[in-house]
């Protein structure tokens, strides 16, 4: 009984910490319509900042709290609203998601540079000591966290529902223009919202840091408040009391599962469960809540869709690409960079480019935001290594088929979700797979999973040159497939679903089938890429398909252009080059890139000033837009996505 009470108190304390973070999310979302994916990262920076002040520089606790929670958080919140978010007004709904993800990877990248992950840092409780109540020991720090969470919930509820500023904070997301006409500055209200959100994030980080008995860790602290995301979703991102109650319930459930269920599991599953549990809660919250209760604050924007290359054009371009690949394969067969052959790196670029193509299909054409393509890639790599002893064409087929099946299973409960919620569901799936499956030593093995090169009857593909050419062929085939899909009836349906789901449904077409189908195709493509990646690398490890590299890659595709084949290729090239040169700063590059690209829906390749005309590409009739334009960065006609309104 005393154990149960002990677990209950700890669960409530944990839930109270989540509640503070969750209410911060609700505040930001209510006042700006933006779900701040960087909420956990802000809390992490605050926790490290607090440690730096108190433990490293011996600043008094109260002064450190003022510096971190009041000065730091408010200045950063105001800065983020003014510099990053305000200029996104009118951007497509997925763009704020990308920018806050960019902010998250920037903050984690900066933290890695500032605070070496190899050093252990333990944050002391603000108030030490404990007392005994009904036979259980309760730390004063726990009471502090619970009391602060209750005060925050009551205070915010009072602010939002009893003051004119609170009404204005709630009204700003409904109609900022009307709020302006009502005599209240909408920009100021949004800024207040971001400041409050950042303060809540910092508060949760600082309060929960001392509960990390093994020391604060950048990734763990960033993802610590993910259970807060689930609570915010249960509260429909607007109801603070429900959010608070949900956070406490999740904290309790998490603690009960860890103490009553986990000990009965096989030893190798125990760590997996601990890591994956918050994401599982988030996924469950998303797929079980009635869709009508999930209020989306997205904006429909009309954007120029890039021109889709015709069939013959694609064939010629693919052939040219393969000729270039052959020349590169033989010209640089012996070139090494930092101990890796150039062709191996080239193979990595092409396999990642296939993942990029899956994003073009899924996000670029049908408008579904997915943050879990690297997860499918990891599953594909795992299957490749396990089927027929690795290195078999059968493995590639199995990787593609199984990932497509898993993709369909994931998509089925999430098809009703759009934009933000789908992004959150795929985020939860990606992290649950990374922490609960890939990180398990039994999956890839302690030293990684060995995968051989593909062997075909009578054909040796063991060399780097042959492997590179094989992957190049697969890339071209996938590019042809993506463009062929876009030109087909199904492709037009994808664009229609993206443009107006309501209009799509009214003509009798099945939105669910279309969404599941495209999700499955994209997952299969990512699985194929994973299989190929494994054969290129010949060994895959536990961290190859982590959530952060996956998010960083999505950002790079968005930066270049998530709607074009050339965007997918250039994103893969950028990712591999930066990962070779500055691996610890790659997130910072991606984050800054997405911030700079801002609301430009077409990414870098969509910027008209960068377009050059290819003399041999005919201008289509019936459009005033300059077609036959090629971005200065795309070298082949596979990239001849000039600008023309989508048909």
């Amino acid at each position, binding site marked *: 009984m005393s154990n149960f009470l002990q677990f209950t108190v700890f669960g409530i304390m944990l839930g109270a910490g989540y509640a503070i973070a969750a209410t911060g999310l609700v505040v930001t979302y209510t006042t700006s319509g933006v779900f701040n994916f960087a909420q956990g990262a802000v809390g992490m920076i605050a926790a490290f900042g607090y440690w730096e002040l108190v433990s490293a520089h011996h600043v008094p606790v109260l002064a450190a709290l003022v510096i971190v929670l009041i000065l730091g958080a408010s200045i950063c919140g105001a800065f983020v609203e003014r510099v990053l978010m305000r200029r996104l007004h009118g951007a497509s709904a997925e763009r704020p998601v990308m920018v806050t993800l960019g902010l998250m990877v920037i903050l984690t990248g900066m933290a890695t540079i500032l605070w070496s992950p190899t050093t252990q840092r333990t944050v002391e409780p603000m108030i030490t000591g404990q007392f005994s109540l009904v036979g259980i020991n309760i730390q004063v720090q726990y009471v502090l966290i619970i009391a602060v969470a209750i005060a925050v919930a009551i205070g915010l509820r009072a602010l939002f529902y009893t003051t004119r500023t609170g009404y204005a904070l709630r009204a700003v997301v409904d109609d900022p223009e009307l709020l302006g006409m009502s*005599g209240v500055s909408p920009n100021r209200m949004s800024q207040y919202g971001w400041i409050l959100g950042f303060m809540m994030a910092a508060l949760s980080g600082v309060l929960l840091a001392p509960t990390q008995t093994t020391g604060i860790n950048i990734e763990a602290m960033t993802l610590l408040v993910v259970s807060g995301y689930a609570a915010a979703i249960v509260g429909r991102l607007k109801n603070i009391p429900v959010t608070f109650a949900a956070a406490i319930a999740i904290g309790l459930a998490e603690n009960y599962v860890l103490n009553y269920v986990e000990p009965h599991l096989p030893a190798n599953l125990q760590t997996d469960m601990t890591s994956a549990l918050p994401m599982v809660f988030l996924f469950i919250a998303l797929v079980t809540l009635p869709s009508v209760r999930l209020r989306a604050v997205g904006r429909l924007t009309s954007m120029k869709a890039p021109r889709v290359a015709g069939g013959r054009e694609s064939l010629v371009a693919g052939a040219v690409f393969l000729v270039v690949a052959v020349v590169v394969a033989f010209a640089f067969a012996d070139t090494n960079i930092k101990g890796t052959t150039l062709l191996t790196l080239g193979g990595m670029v092409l396999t990642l480019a296939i993942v990029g193509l899956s994003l073009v299909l899924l996000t670029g054409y049908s408008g579904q935001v997915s943050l879990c393509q690297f997860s499918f890639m990891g599953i594909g790599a795992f299957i490749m290594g396990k089927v027929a002893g690795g290195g078999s064409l059968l493995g590639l087929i199995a990787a593609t088929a199984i990932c497509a099946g898993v993709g369909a299973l994931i998509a089925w409960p999430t098809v009703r979700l759009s934009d933000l919620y789908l992004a959150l569901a795929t985020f939860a799936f990606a992290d649950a797979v990374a922490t609960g499956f890939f990180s398990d030593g039994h999956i890839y093995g302690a030293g990684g999973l060995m995968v051989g090169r593909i062997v075909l009857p009578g054909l040796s593909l063991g060399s780097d040159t042959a492997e590179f050419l094989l992957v190049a062929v697969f890339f071209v085939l996938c590019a042809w497939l993506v463009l062929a899909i876009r030109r087909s009836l199904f492709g037009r349906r994808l664009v229609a679903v993206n443009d107006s789901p309501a209009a799509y449904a009214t003509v009798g077409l099945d939105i669910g089938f279309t969404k599941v189908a495209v999700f499955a195709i994209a997952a299969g493509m990512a699985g194929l890429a994973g299989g190929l990646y494994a054969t290129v690398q010949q060994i895959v490890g536990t961290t190859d398909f982590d959530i952060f590299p996956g998010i960083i890659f999505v950002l790079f595709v968005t930066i270049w252009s998530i709607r074009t084949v050339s965007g997918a290729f250039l994103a893969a090239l950028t990712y591999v080059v930066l990962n070779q040169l500055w691996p610890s700063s790659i997130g910072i590059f991606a984050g800054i890139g997405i911030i700079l690209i801002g609301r430009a829906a077409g990414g870098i390749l969509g910027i008209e000033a960068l377009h050059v005309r290819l003399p041999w590409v005919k201008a289509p009739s019936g459009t005033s837009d300059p077609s036959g334009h090629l971005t200065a960065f795309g070298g082949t006609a596979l990239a001849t996505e000039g600008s023309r309104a989508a048909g």
Partner: protein
Amino acid sequence: MSDGSTTSTTGATTSTLPPSVSVRGVRASYGRIEVLHGVDLEVPAGSVFALLGPNGAGKSTLLKVLSGRMRTTAGEVLVGDVPIGKTPSEKLARQGICAVPEGRGIFPNLTVRENLRIWTYRGGITMKDVEEQTYATFPVLKERRRQLAGTMSGGEQQMLAISRALVTRPRVLYLDELSMGLAPLIVAELYELVGTLARQGMTIVLVEQFVTTALAVADHAAIMVHGRIEQQGTPSEMADAALSIYLA
């Protein structure tokens, strides 16, 4: 229309003369597309000015410019003798220039009472006064005061929207398509209120597609076509002109 002394719905009398509104050579664009091509307009102080015209004529865009929601690319707008320049809409609202936008100018996720509370931004207005005035004019809103505004009928939402003009006592009022999507009886009721507001001493510019409805309460009118003022004059002159322009 106005002698300079004004009476509010609660009977309070003020001596503030409402200002005139002058539009001089105003041009405005959406991106590269210019939609207002040098608009000139004089709205006399304390009058009701009806801005008529077919769809796409630029009426609502002109109202956006007047209320500070859209920047001009050329020309100027003066309220009284003061150019509004780049003054943001919230400052104009605080200066007594009130706009009720097209559609329902309300916050759908706030209750009726919370909507009214937001509108107490001008000094000297208490929530008690606001509620008294609003509920006296629109008794149905009292019954709905705890209801989310977005869940009310279109007519009730428009009543709430126009009640802002009642409670904030603006000097200048811009009304955009007040009749949109409403039953004729409710439109008649709302326009009756416009007439009452005008008599209290307010410069009113109303944008409307329904010519007879607007001209019935207007002192002056203009017809806009393709981003230009085609004709302006008295309501009777405009009634004849509108027929030929609308049918052209």
